């Protein structure tokens, strides 16, 4: 199958140039693989749309001879899109019964930019319902299977995208990361996953979970492909007032600059190697860090003392924002309206009938968020959590005076088995402790595969940099990938 032979953007474009592969051939094989797959990674396959896009790419190639990389940096590249990103006329479910039949009337900015760059969308990927979860077991349409280890979870919430990339059911994919939902599944599945700086990618067209934390980012086979996707979809968008107007770097060009290891100060936070972190994970990550030191980088011991509060802050802030954001699913503008919903005594009854379509984890979080925002508890929970959020941000600001980047693990453990944590929400929440801080502080963070445990399950190295130093995250990750991985 061609999708297994040609797996990166560079390799595919080179093959297009040599005429040994065409966009239509690659798309056909990728669609066939996605259809035959038992991973449940896709919720919707876009066969017709993908073939049309591939044919357009074939035509462009016939006219230009070689891939016009400047105009179409993603020409003929099969991509997957998480099912909380809207595409005009394409069912977008957020893996929820609530949006089972929702056909959005517009295309989100990030997705639109990818399509204009020549990308071919294979389908919409499975996820935890409304991006709430870390195992992909919360999908209303069934869990996603780990790409290499049956019986294990792929991580979440963007587990379908991570699995699709690892299993060659696409070349790269989009996910969203609110508390680790790109980086953690990337780590579990052994692919690259990048959460850009908050505001670097427009959120227009991303179904909101927690608006001050959500960010769209790429999954890819390598750092260069992630840089290509970010370069295409990033940058200011008048349709998202929180998108940054800072000029967007050409991240691919940035990767070509040699990294001055000797001038690089690498912070190692002691709080990221606490007792709860699995010994093999810690050892593997430390081995990668030792290699970085061997290249000449200066290791700096740093402290992020408020890290132990990160999960608490997140599970107040994120659920509060979610309880507010998900109020829009009212059965009038959005949502499924049950047949008997109009026969009600009052409006509250109507809403309750409609909102019965939410799954258990979504209900749990709406209840927690509504509680945290309610009269009598707001100051003790929401306001205080936001104060501690500032302390967490201050920790990073202080640390980045002594170092340029931070390295550490992504998650305390490797992928776990289906059902292992499903009955204990808090246990699942605590698994996010090392990814949440980036979201709370708005920082860029990336997961880079750096080894495997005894069972062969992948382990991710986390690279974190100050806000808007996505270039540094990518350059350091790229250098480690080239020399170490």
């Amino acid at each position, binding site marked *: 199958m061609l999708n297994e032979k040609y797996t990166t953007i560079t390799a595919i474009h080179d093959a297009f140039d040599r005429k040994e592969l065409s966009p239509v051939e690659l798309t056909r094989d990728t669609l066939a693989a996605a259809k035959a797959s038992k991973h449940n990674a896709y919720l919707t396959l876009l066969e017709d749309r993908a073939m049309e896009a591939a044919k357009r790419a074939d035509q462009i190639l016939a006219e230009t001879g070689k891939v016009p990389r400047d105009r179409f940096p993603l020409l003929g590249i099969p991509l997957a899109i998480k099912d909380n990103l809207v595409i005009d006329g394409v069912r977008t479910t957020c893996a929820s019964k609530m949006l089972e*039949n*929702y*056909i959005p*009337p517009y295309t989100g900015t990030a997705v639109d930019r990818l399509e204009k760059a020549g990308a071919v969308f294979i389908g919409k990927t499975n996820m935890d319902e409304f991006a709430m979860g870390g195992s992909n077991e919360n999908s209303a349409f069934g869990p996603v299977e780990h790409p290499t280890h049956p019986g294990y979870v792929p991580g979440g919430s963007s587990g379908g995208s991570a699995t699709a990339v690892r299993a060659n059911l696409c070349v790269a994919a989009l996910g969203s990361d609110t508390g680790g939902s790109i980086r953690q599944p990337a780590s579990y599945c052994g692919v690259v996953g990048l959460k850009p700086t*908050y*505001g670097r990618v427009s959120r227009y067209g991303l179904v909101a979970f927690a608006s*001050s934390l959500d960010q769209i980012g790429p999954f890819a086979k390598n750092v260069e492909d992630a840089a290509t996707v970010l370069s295409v979809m990033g940058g200011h968008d*008048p349709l998202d*007032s*929180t998108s940054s107007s800072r000029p967007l770097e050409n991240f691919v060009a940035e990767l070509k600059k040699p990294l001055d290891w000797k001038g690089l100060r690498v912070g190692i936070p002691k709080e990221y190697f606490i007792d709860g972190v699995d010994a093999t994970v810690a050892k593997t990550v430390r081995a990668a860090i030792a290699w970085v030191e061997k290249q000449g980088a200066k290791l700096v011991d740093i402290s992020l003392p*408020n890290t132990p*509060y990160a*999960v*608490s802050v997140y599970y*107040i802030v994120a659920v509060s924002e979610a*309880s507010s954001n998900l*109020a829009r699913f009212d*059965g*009038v*503008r*959005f949502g*499924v309206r049950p047949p008997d*919903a109009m026969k*009600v005594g009052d*409006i*509250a009854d*109507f*809403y*309750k009938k409609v*909102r*019965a379509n939410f799954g*258990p984890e979504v*209900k*749990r979080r*709406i*209840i*927690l968020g*509504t*509680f945290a925002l*309610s009269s*009598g*508890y707001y100051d*003790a*929970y929401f*306001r*205080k959590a*936001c*104060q*501690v*959020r*500032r*302390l967490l*941000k201050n920790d990073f600001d202080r640390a980045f005076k002594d170092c340029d980047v931070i390295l550490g693990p992504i998650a305390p453990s490797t992928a776990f088995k289906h059902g292992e944590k499903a009955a204990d*929400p*808090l246990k699942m*929440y605590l698994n996010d402790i090392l990814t949440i801080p980036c979201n*709370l*502080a*708005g920082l860029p963070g990336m997961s880079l595969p750096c080894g495997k445990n005894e069972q062969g399950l992948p382990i991710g190295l986390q690279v974190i940099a100050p*806000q808007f130093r996505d270039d540094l995250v990518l350059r350091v990750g790229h250098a480690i990938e080239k020399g170490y991985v």
Partner: protein
Amino acid sequence: MSNSGNPIEVNEALVRKVADLARLALTDAEVTLFSTQMKVTLGYVEQISKATIPEGTEPMYHPFDMATPMRDDTVVTPMTTADGKPKMIRSAPDTLYEGFKVPPIL
């Protein structure tokens, strides 16, 4: 705990009250399960009360201390389908006269 510092008791009555505020209908089994789980989760998140928060620490509601950007107040064409109908209501649960059909409230 509450704003006044009093400990709160997470029980089924509290879960029912909050679910009502959130317009969620829960089954009895869900109320029992959620109240147990909420007790555990709130018991954990209450550790933020142990954080040392210096006097005058402003709450951080957003990653950037940015002001809301303003744009010109210009009329734009609404999204319409090929036959000129408003696109925004295309996927509404129910429509009437090219508008959202709302439930009766009287």
